[in-house]
């Protein structure tokens, strides 16, 4: 019961945030000097003032701003984000929809990689604080934090793609012979193409998470209940993984939620480097072409994705921490 109530409360809390996201996106759109459609109109030599006026009316740009916002918001709720300015004039949502799966897939895979590697790493570093292992990982974390992801991508392309020639450096599957492959070969082909992008998008997270895990573990290992567990004569492995890690992971769930926008933001970079047809690449080409409807649609969609990611993290937190879902802990 407590959990359902908690969920309802959280969902209600999302509404103002969602409205805020749409307001900011709308504001950014109208930051444009001139109007979103003026660029399109300026390129057309046959454009007369009357036609321009008609176009304005067609796009609703002659209406007051709040009317335009209400209209746009109404469209947004129905996933109607307008049409692209590009020659194909396709619906913005259709363009985004077909590119979302690959971006989400890569982000989920890289999240799995981050959690799978950084948690054991952080735990080990904390348990053996100040050991050689701890110091080496600390240095690696600092370097990974400072390394520009796109540069690492270039180096990896240079090494694995060109020098060793063992991994493909662009696209998500082979262009030649892909149709003839068996399902297993296709999966293998995809995997080979995704290794570098997933790794590159995970670097920052790997560094951050092993660091957070380490400090969170250090914090927990100092608690009295750990001493109690040890005093009971429990094996160290049980103390570390059952008693300490479980509690250390709690704050990490929040950080996981907070790190989602950074992860999605990284998509722009690695998708453009590795020529992956995802949302990030769409965003980049929209900026280059000044395709405003696609730009705005993208901005809103990724923000909503982040919002949902945060909600998932909150639910995860509540699911593992009874204090939250029963509301025993104060709001602070």
């Amino acid at each position: 019961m407590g959990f359902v109530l908690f969920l309802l409360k959280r969902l209600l809390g999302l509404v103002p945030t969602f409205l805020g996201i749409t307001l900011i996106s709308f504001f950014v759109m109208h930051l444009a000097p001139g109007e979103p459609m003026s660029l399109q109109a300026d390129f057309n030599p046959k454009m007369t003032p009357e036609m321009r006026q008609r176009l304005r009316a067609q796009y609703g740009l002659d209406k007051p701003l709040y009317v335009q916002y209400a209209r746009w918001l109404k469209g947004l709720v129905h996933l109607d984000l307008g049409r692209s300015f590009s020659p194909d004039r396709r619906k913005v949502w259709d363009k985004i929809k077909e590119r979302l799966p690959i971006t989400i897939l890569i982000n989920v895979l890289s999240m799995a990689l981050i959690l799978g590697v950084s948690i054991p790493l952080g735990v080990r570093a904390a348990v053996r604080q100040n050991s050689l292992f701890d110091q080496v990982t600390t240095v690696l974390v600092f370097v990974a934090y400072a390394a520009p992801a796109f540069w690492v991508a270039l180096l990896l392309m240079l090494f694995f793609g060109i020098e060793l020639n063992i991994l493909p450096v662009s696209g998500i599957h082979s262009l030649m012979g892909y149709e003839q492959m068996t399902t297993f070969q296709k999966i293998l082909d995809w995997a080979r193409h995704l290794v570098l992008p997933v790794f590159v998008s995970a670097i920052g997270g790997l560094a951050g998470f092993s660091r957070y895990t380490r400090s969170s573990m250090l914090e927990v290992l100092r608690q009295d209940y750990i001493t109690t567990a040890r005093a009971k004569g429990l094996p160290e492995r049980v103390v570390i993984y059952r008693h300490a890690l479980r509690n250390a992971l709690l704050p990490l769930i929040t950080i996981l939620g907070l790190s989602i926008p950074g992860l999605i933001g990284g998509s722009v970079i690695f998708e453009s480097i590795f020529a992956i047809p995802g949302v990030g690449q769409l965003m980049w080409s929209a900026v280059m072409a000044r395709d405003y409807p696609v730009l705005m649609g993208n901005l809103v969609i990724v923000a909503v994705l982040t919002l949902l990611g945060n909600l998932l993290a909150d639910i995860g937190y509540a699911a593992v921490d009874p204090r939250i879902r029963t509301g025993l802990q104060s709001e602070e």
Partner: protein
Amino acid sequence: MEGIFSAVAASKGSAWVRTLKELCSSPLTMSGLIIVGILIFTALFAPVLAPYDPQQIDTYHILEPPSHRHILGTDGLGRDCFSRLIFGARISLLVGFVAVGIATVVGTVLGAIAGYYGRWVDGLIMRFVDIMLCFPTIFLIMAVIAFLEPSIWNIMIVIGLTGWMGVARLVRAEFLSLKKRDFVLAARIAGASDLQIVFSEILPNAIAPILVSATLGVGGAILTESALSFLGIGVQPPTPSWGNMLTEGKDNLEIAWWLSVFPGLAILVTVLGYNLLGEGLRDFLDPRKKRRN
């Protein structure tokens, strides 16, 4: 007797010297300080240090590998990469400082207002922060940049205006705890105005964490600028920036490895320097953290 005098003299010796001494006691912080120092020096004296004009095109010597004449090789237009790298330091330094300056001022003002006034003002500002945090920064920056000329000033302003949320949260938290302290109460009883209390009582006590977050922020801003320039929507050629130099590296990846390796290394070392310095400052200014970690 003399010992006492020198001790007194030492304690009187400027706080700055002592600060610096203590900072330098950690080798990591020390290396951060040295890196940042070298970077500032390079940026200031770029015209003296660079062996060639960074814009000088030399069509007879394009894409030359590193040699004694061009120690980091030449690019596709025959320009000296080492000289371009040196001038690129100016861009990175400028972007880092200005963008972080903007973010710090905006964040501090909003955080201070939220923390000091509390209630609905706090609620409103923090809700705004939450909303801003939902946007992947690079998407937000790209959406704004698309409407503007991609000049270096626009880039700095946009990076600054999308990076203040962390500072705001931090300053708010500091203000929430500091405003309840006795010295603030004393100032209020003495008849100080809100503005006086905020600026001369509370803010000076919150400077340390702001300074740490600003130092750490410089690295982030440099990374963002380089990514934008790499994507072709940041600093535009022919102005050399480490990010747009890497774009050329990507285009010539198979034939000129030196174009990809060195600018990235420069970014890495610079960001590392600021991060090390920031972490060192944090440990120094917050002894609690030092003990815990």
